[in-house]
């Protein structure tokens, strides 16, 4: 029920601007983007899809920031492991 998936806008339908063709891994689906009418939407944007509606536009900057933090944690961990392996314990 909370099932929300990210999808990429492929085109906004010409005759109905509250509808967009969205692609999820190459699977195309028409999604109602009426709840995002206050936001500029264009092909290439990513949105969160839930029961046939777009609920939110994915903020790519925030996504990048999130990933950078996570990768940072991962790298720090790998560094620590490396340091541990190389350290001289007497």
């Amino acid at each position, binding site marked *: 029920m909370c099932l929300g998936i990210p999808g990429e806008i492929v085109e906004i339908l010409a005759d109905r601007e509250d509808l967009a063709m969205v692609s999820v891994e190459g699977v195309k689906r028409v999604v109602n983007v009426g709840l995002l009418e206050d936001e500029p939407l264009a092909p290439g944007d990513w949105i969160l899809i839930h*029961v046939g*509606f777009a609920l939110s536009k994915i903020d790519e900057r925030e996504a990048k920031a999130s990933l950078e933090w996570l990768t940072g944690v991962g790298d720090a961990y790998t560094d620590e492991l490396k340091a541990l392996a190389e350290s001289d314990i007497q």
Partner: protein
Amino acid sequence: MRFVDEFRDAGTARALATRIAALCEPGRRYKFMEVCGGHTHTIYKHGLEDYLPETVSLVHGPGCPVCVIPMGRVDDAIAIAERDDVILTTFGDMLRVPGGRGSFFDSKAAGADIRMVYSPLDALKVARKNPDKRVVFMAIGFETTAPSTAMTVLRAAAEGLDNFSIFCNHVTIIPAIKAILDSPDLRLDGFIGPGHVSTIIGCRPYEFIAREYGKPLVCAGFEPLDILQSVYQLLLQLHEGRCEIENQYARVVPWDGNLKALQVIGEVMELRPHFEWRGLGFIAQSALRVRERYASFDAERIFSVPGVRVADPKACQCGEVLKGVLRPWECKVFGTACTPETPIGTCMVSSEGACAAYYNFGRFSRERVKEATQA
């Protein structure tokens, strides 16, 4: 899959797990509630508990909109569906929820026209294709789904469809969280906040939890790393003596929510004075119904339903599981009289129910699983 796979990296998970363990005070046990059924599902589906120290336990909350529907409302929906000229459309999750005398699935086998849909817009399609039938959409869900239902009603109104209506069982999350906070049985250290509900209502509505109850809440995404990072953020807050609302899911959740969605809900629906929640009893101002001006789309006005309050079976302890007081396996009928094939209560039926998640995915002790999966 973009925005999905990156948040499933196992290496990062191990790193986070170490950081999480490092933040735990020796000798202290932590209890965090994940409110949202979708989070319960993710936790079990990906085996997330394997990454948390023994001292951190996740308690499953009432954020499963199927789970909180009382049996009487299922009976009402079936009463509508059993009419010859009605087609009842519903999300798949509702099909096997037991009412007083059986589920939608049983009703369907006995001849009622009940069809599964993936979107309320699919229900509109059914209505257009069947002008001689009355199509009713079983509307369930928290604030995540209410705007979609509302948009569909507006669409139906714009098209002048006169054979479409909704049976509105939308509920709101804040009263449920408040019921948990006010419950004397539970001592929680913090909350993993709902992810998709927050895309609609934003993060401000949770501020009272920190301010008045002194518990931190981190709004979390649905990928495994999202949840692990949220647990990390909660522990960090406790470690640093902070108590705040944080948004881990900022790539999707806007702090102020979706104004258009809130407007659309307000246009079509209003709060009921009170509504019965399975296991939590009657809660004021906690559910939505269709406004007077959209009465022709309100199944409750169009059809007279029994409206009988059906008590949960005596043996059913869904209420306590929903409040996080009982772990699924602690329920007296878990796994014996109540199984996914023969459910007694909703927690065992919904794909987001704690009992279903535990039985279907997590039902094995961590030690034995670790032994079995050692490469």
